[in-house]
Structure formats: structure tokens, C-alpha cells
């Protein structure tokens, strides 16, 4: 007989809602558990909820903490009372940490069973903060009064939709490789969510170029020895496009600077450059420019590429990226910069009649990211490519 892995769903709810509508609790615990299990082969799912009154008072229970940290999925019965409860909000915050360590996918299933909009103006800032974080997710609407009046068949169909999504979350967990290195997944998490907040410093794409400045400098020739090749690139960290209907922010995900001698002599890689800061820059090889020394610049986990995109050498503004042989002339060097964009978030203008789901917003963000790159393309290889000015470096 095959061994079954058991996945747990932590059921987060306000006790008051359980007393008011016990039918909801049964639907989204017992019946939901049955329906999820019906979709799984060689795995089992069970819902855990506090039935022992552990969540009384303000003291955080170790048992609750343990259950949250081993849960595969968090199921939230979203109501004004849930938002009000400090305990429920903490459950959500703790599970967000668990989710972050997985790196990809979302594992919270909020079920909106009572409207919250009318109460929003009375919420505290801490409550509004959690409200905003949970509203950013895909949620199911099962308003209690409507849901409990459905026929049994319709109600089962609604529960089955929730079950289908939770079964998908479990599928994703089963397909993920065994816990990659923590640093890798933490980086993906911050990269994905940390960038999603809007920045007051974003600049208008209609007014500014994404490239603030870029330059390559080469040491003056002396004594027939090798000379340093230095560079620096300053990007606008965040750009926005605003229309009457929406506002989207984006920035540079990664960039590659290539330098080559177009005349006599050679530009060579600098021993040790790779180990200066491998998370920020590393040598790569470009097929479309194979004779060049090319350096890729990567965005940091929490922000896009910005000023000083190349790690400065010796606390200087400039970054030494290569050496040039004595024959190289500054006016015969060729330097090019290639970039890729990444969207950070989409905001729909207030007052639009039809709110967009989070899934649709994500699709639009991704498509706009591709459209921006396509609009900017000027290189023969289909990448955004700019020539970079070159000069001599005067000591």
C-alpha cells in the first residue's frame, strides 16, 4: 500500500462567526476537507482548527504557532470580526512568513463570507494593513446569507471551487523541489512582493529615459602596459506609465554592458571581478557580441537596478570591469548596453465600475512588461540595446 503524505490546512476564523453561522464552519472545514481529498491521489488533506479555545486572551499560543508553521495552506474565513481580531491577523502574518520561504506560489485561500467595505472606515491602521494584504490575493466570495440559502447541489459546487484551488496549491507543494537554499527562496520572495509597493519616487516614462547616464572610461596609455577599463551605469530605479484608467510601475530587471576593441588591441576580463559581488554583477558571454567583455548587472532583492548599477571598485564611483592592452585606443572602443524590464505593480484608477481580479492584474502587468520591451527594441537580436559613450580616464 502506498504511503500517503498528509497536508494540513489551518482554518483561521473568528469565534463569533462560528457561533453566528455554524453551517459555514461545517461547509468550509468538514465538507471542504472531503472534496479536497477526493481530488488527491497518494496524498491526504486535513483541516486543523482551534477547537480547544487556545486563542483566548492576548497570549500567543505555541501550539497555534506550531500548527501554522507546519500547515500547507491557510484558509481564512474573512469577515469584519476576523479583521478585528488581533489573534486572527497574527495567524495570517505568521503564515505569510511560512509562505515566503516557499518562494513560489500562494498558499492562502481567503473566503469572504461577510462584506467588509462598509466597515472599512472604522478600521485601525493595523487592521487596514492586513485588509490590504489579504485583498491583494485571489479570494472566494461566499456571502453567508446567500451561500447558506443555496440548494445543496449549488453549495457543493461552490465548495468544490474552493477545493479545486486548494488542491492546486497542494499540487504545487508536491511538485516543488525539496526546500531550496533559504537564501534563494527568500530572495525570490522579496523580489516578488517587496517590489510590489508603489514608490513616490517613480518617474514618468513619458518624461524621462530609463537610462540616466552611462559611460565607459579607459586609462590613458602609458609605458606599453595594460590599462584599466572602467564603467558606470545609472538607471532610473522606477518608472511609471499613467493613463486615465490605470497606473503601472516598472524598472530594470537586469542589464548587460559589453565592451570590445573595434580597432587594434584587446579588451580582457579582469581577474577576480566575478568575486567582487556575484549577486550584483558577473561576466557573461553574448553570442551576438562574442568579442566583447560583457558584464551582467542584476537587480537587488528589494529594488530594481538604480544608480551605481555596477559595484564600484575601491569605494570609487567607477567600477573596473576589464583591462585593455596598450594598443587599444579609446576612440576605437565599442560599448553597448542591453536591458530587460520588470513590472512592479498595477493600480487601477479610483471610480472604475468593474474591479479587476488580482489574477487579471498580474496578467496585465506581465503583458505590459513584454510590450515595453518590444516598444524599446532597437538591437538586431531583439533586445533593448543602447550605445554607451567612451572616453579616456584622467587620473
Amino acid at each position: 500500500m502506498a504511503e500517503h503524505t498528509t497536508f494540513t490546512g489551518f482554518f483561521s476564523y473568528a469565534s463569533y462567526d462560528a457561533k453566528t453561522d455554524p453551517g459555514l464552519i461545517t461547509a468550509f472545514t468538514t465538507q471542504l476537507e472531503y472534496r479536497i481529498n477526493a481530488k488527491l491521489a497518494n496524498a491526504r488533506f486535513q483541516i486543523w482548527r482551534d477547537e480547544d479555545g487556545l486563542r483566548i486572551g492576548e497570549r500567543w499560543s505555541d501550539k497555534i504557532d506550531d500548527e501554522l508553521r507546519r500547515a500547507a495552506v491557510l484558509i481564512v474565513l474573512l469577515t469584519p470580526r476576523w479583521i478585528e481580531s488581533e489573534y486572527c491577523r497574527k495567524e495570517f502574518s505568521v503564515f505569510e512568513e511560512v509562505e515566503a520561504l516557499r518562494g513560489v506560489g500562494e498558499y492562502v485561500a481567503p473566503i469572504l463570507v461577510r462584506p467588509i467595505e462598509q466597515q472599512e472606515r472604522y478600521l485601525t491602521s493595523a487592521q487596514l494593513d492586513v485588509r490590504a494584504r489579504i485583498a491583494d490575493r485571489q479570494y472566494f466570495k461566499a456571502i453567508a446569507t446567500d451561500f447558506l440559502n443555496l440548494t445543496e447541489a449549488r453549495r457543493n459546487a461552490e465548495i468544490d471551487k474552493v477545493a479545486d484551488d486548494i488542491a492546486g496549491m497542494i499540487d504545487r507543494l508536491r511538485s516543488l523541489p525539496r526546500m531550496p537554499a533559504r537564501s534563494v527562496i527568500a530572495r525570490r520572495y522579496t523580489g516578488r512582493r517587496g517590489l510590489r509597493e508603489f514608490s513616490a519616487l517613480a518617474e514618468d516614462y513619458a518624461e524621462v529615459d530609463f537610462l540616466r547616464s552611462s559611460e565607459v572610461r579607459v586609462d590613458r596609455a602609458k609605458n606599453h602596459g595594460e590599462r584599466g577599463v572602467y564603467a558606470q551605469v545609472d538607471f532610473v530605479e522606477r518608472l511609471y506609465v499613467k493613463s486615465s484608467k490605470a497606473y503601472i510601475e516598472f524598472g530594470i530587471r537586469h542589464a548587460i554592458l559589453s565592451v570590445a576593441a573595434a580597432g587594434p588591441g584587446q579588451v580582457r576580463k579582469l581577474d577576480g571581478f566575478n568575486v567582487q559581488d556575484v549577486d550584483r554583477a558577473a561576466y557573461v558571454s553574448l553570442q551576438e557580441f562574442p568579442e566583447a567583455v560583457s558584464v551582467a548587472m542584476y537587480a537587488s532583492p528589494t529594488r530594481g537596478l538604480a544608480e551605481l548599477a555596477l559595484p564600484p571598485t575601491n569605494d570609487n564611483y567607477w567600477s573596473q570591469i576589464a583591462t585593455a592592452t596598450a594598443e587599444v585606443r579609446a576612440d576605437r572602443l565599442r560599448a553597448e548596453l542591453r536591458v530587460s524590464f520588470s513590472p512592479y505593480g498595477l493600480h487601477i484608477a479610483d471610480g472604475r465600475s468593474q474591479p479587476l481580479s488580482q489574477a487579471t492584474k498580474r496578467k496585465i502587468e506581465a503583458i505590459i512588461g513584454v510590450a515595453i520591451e518590444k516598444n524599446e527594441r532597437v538591437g538586431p537580436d531583439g533586445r533593448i540595446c543602447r550605445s554607451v559613450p567612451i572616453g579616456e580616464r584622467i587620473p
Partner: protein
Amino acid sequence: VIADNTETPARAIVETLDRLIDEGERHERASFAALVRVAGLDPAHDFIDAFLVDLDFRDEDLRGFDFSGADLSGADFRRANVAGVRFEGAILTGAIGLKRKMLVVTKTIGNRTSEPEMRIGALRIAASKPNGYATTTQLKDEMPKYVDLTVQDLASSKTRPNEAMYHQIIGNIVSHQDSRTNIFARGLAVYTGDGIQITDAGREFLRRRGF
């Protein structure tokens, strides 16, 4: 031709954004393929190497898309029609709803293993070596340990009787064929003259694919 293009093309993006919002508002679950059409993008070319993390493709008809090299981590493809969709070299960590047989587009007509599948094999071989460096001979010798080669891959080459058919693909990988998606253009490896050396970006690429 490289041009200094300092004139921002924001107007076109604003118009595209508005069209996308209109389309999104028309449907409770706007289809990715429909949004792509509205944006005037080409499914067969524009989504190669695209950043498509955590997208919800459930119930979509994605036939005609090329997602080669795209980052599709966490994407949900349940009930999507992905017949013929290209995923070569795509990052699919945590992506769900893709049946193994759907991904067997990597075996080409004639049941040969594709170059993208073998590129990953080559990176894995390099990653297993000291300093991440593997010669072309090592790639040829060790590829069967990393990639499920077909009978057709292992057959003798018609033009080079001493070589198996799959050796030609390894030769292509090492000699920079297919510029847009090759491992050097994407910064995943460096050409060393007699083989490849995997970069940090290459190791990260493998980690994210679960290797």
C-alpha cells in the same frame, strides 16, 4: 544597427494599458490570450524569455504560444490547452497543471531530443565538475546520464559514422548555434574554447528548475 533611442515610447504603452484595462473589465476572468491579442503582441515570438511568474492560466487556450526560456515559476496551467506550446528552457518551478506528456514537445519530430533539453543536460554536467567546467568530450560522454536519450538520438550519424546523432546537438550547443536562447547569450555559461563553464546565473537557473 544600434541607435540612441532617447525618445520614450510611453504614448503607445499608455494606449496599450487602456485597452488592456477595458478588456480586463469586460470579463470576470480575462483570458491571457485575449489580453495578448488586445495588446497587439505576437504569441509565437514575444513571450520567449518573458517574466510570467505566478500567472493564472487556468482554462486558457494557449495554443500558438512560445514560452521558451520564460520564467513561469508558480504558474497555474490546470485545464489549460497547451497542445504544441513550447516550453524549452522555461523555468517551471512550482508550476502546476502541466502533464509530463504535454512537455514532451521537447522530443522533436523524428523522436530526437531537442537542443533546449540538452542545453539543460550540458549545464548539469558542467555544474557537477570542479570549477563548473566540462569539455565537449565530457558533455558527449555523460549526456546519457542526464537526459533520457531516444533510440534515434543514439543512432549513428549519417555524415559522421563515428558519432551518435546526439553528438551533433552537443556540437551546436558548444558552437553558439541558435543565438537568442543559447546558454551563452543568456549568461548561463561561458565558452572556454574546448567546452563550457557554468556561471553563477547558470547554477541559479538549475536550482530554480529543481536540479
